């Protein structure tokens, strides 16, 4: 496992090319409304739509599968948790596990929840897989009017990420060299983890202080209005992407209500 921020998709695909702010807005406006229901219908339709759009984002199915792999574990967790803790145990009884009745209601809810996890997560995974952090920061500043000092400051810190990943490995080895290892004792393992994390944080903060000084030395805080070396444009196609996402999400939820599937999370 590595720590990297490079986009993992073909950046020239029609939708991958869209403005990062537009992509992010579209992903959020599409997936957040889906949280409002726990029925299986809405997320199933959404998921079909998302997978259909995949090629337009230039994301290969295998790549997506790797990124979404942790979701499978979450799905398994939902299955177990639903068996133990489902609120709704109506419907036909399929079988019983000790005191826990697994009914059609339980299975339907579990299926809904699992589909929902995937449907809500995929848009974000797709968008971030096709977005370069620099482009995102540029677009946030130029198109979403985010304060430049904060966007660029965060971006500069992101650059330290792979460096800190390597540092973690070095710290781990250095602890063994000092005669500190945990073996199988979980308490010792936790202590070792905390001590390594502390050393990582000290190194990271020290780097951060130096980085901030170097940035100021190059006029970051000069108060002169910044110019943009790289332009990000928000075009009609970007607006269309955002509007389409809203319409798609609204349509799916309306269908879910009309067809009687809708189960709101409030009330």
């Amino acid at each position: 496992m590595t720590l990297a921020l490079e986009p993992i998709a073909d950046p020239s695909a029609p939708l991958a090319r869209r403005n990062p702010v537009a992509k992010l807005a579209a992903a959020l406006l599409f997936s957040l409304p889906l949280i409002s229901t726990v029925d299986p219908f809405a997320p199933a339709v959404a998921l079909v739509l998302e997978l259909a759009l995949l090629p337009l984002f230039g994301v290969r199915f295998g790549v997506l599968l790797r990124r979404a792999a942790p979701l499978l574990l979450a799905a398994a967790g939902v299955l177990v948790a639903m068996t133990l803790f489902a609120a709704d145990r109506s419907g036909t009884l399929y079988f019983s596990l000790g005191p826990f009745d697994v009914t059609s209601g339980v299975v339907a809810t579990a299926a809904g929840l699992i589909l929902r996890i995937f449907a809500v997560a995929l848009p974000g995974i797709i968008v971030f897989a096709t977005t370069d952090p620099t482009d995102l920061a540029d677009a946030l500043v130029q198109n979403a009017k985010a304060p430049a000092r904060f966007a660029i400051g965060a971006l500069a810190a992101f650059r330290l990420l792979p460096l800190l990943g390597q540092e973690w490995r070095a710290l781990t080895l250095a602890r063994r060299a000092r005669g500190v290892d945990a073996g199988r004792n979980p308490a010792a393992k936790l202590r070792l983890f905390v001590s390594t994390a502390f050393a990582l944080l000290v190194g990271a903060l020290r780097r951060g202080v130096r980085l901030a000084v170097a940035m100021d030395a190059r006029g970051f805080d000069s108060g002169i209005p910044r110019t943009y070396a790289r332009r990000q444009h928000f075009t009609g196609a970007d607006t269309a992407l955002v509007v389409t996402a809203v319409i798609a999400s609204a349509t799916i939820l309306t269908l879910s209500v009309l067809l009687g599937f809708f189960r709101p999370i409030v009330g």
Partner: protein
Amino acid sequence: MSNTNPNRWRTIDIVIASVIAVAFGVIFWAWNTVWSVTEAAFAFFPPAQSILYGIWLMPAVLGGLIIRKPGAALYTETVAAILSALLGNKWGGTVILQGLIQGAGAELAFAALRYRSYKLPIALLAGALTGLSAAIYDFFAWTYAYELWSYRVPYGAFTVVSSVLVAGLGSWLLVRALAPTGVLDRFGAGRERALI
């Protein structure tokens, strides 16, 4: 530099808040590699997973305690959330909204004291409020279909307790341990050590 408004963020404030978020991104990644077993174990008893929540919520409280400026908790937790989305976490883009909500929780605690106190009780309060905001978000967004008293309420309670202990107490202890290393010398949190 000529600007003397104490609430204005210096470059170092912005960078350090962001670096805290990045460092926790790495710590989280390392946790998942070191303890991959727990992920599976927690998957089968999800309320226990909320213990992990405490670490996830630390940037909010730590950012507030170190930077000591309005917006620090909110900004740090939001950057942490954006980073985790960029790294490809499993909750997709909605994690950004979640980060905003959790950051706002801790921010509320610091704002309540008008950004004047950063002592232990405030750290605990910030931990409690960020945990509470996280629990409320999950209560509606993720745990709706579960039994109220045997799952949803314990899950929320675990989240808040873990947040008070790990994010609140943990961050306060961390600042106390970081100050003597000298890396916080340019922050109020680091200046409270003796002349050397």
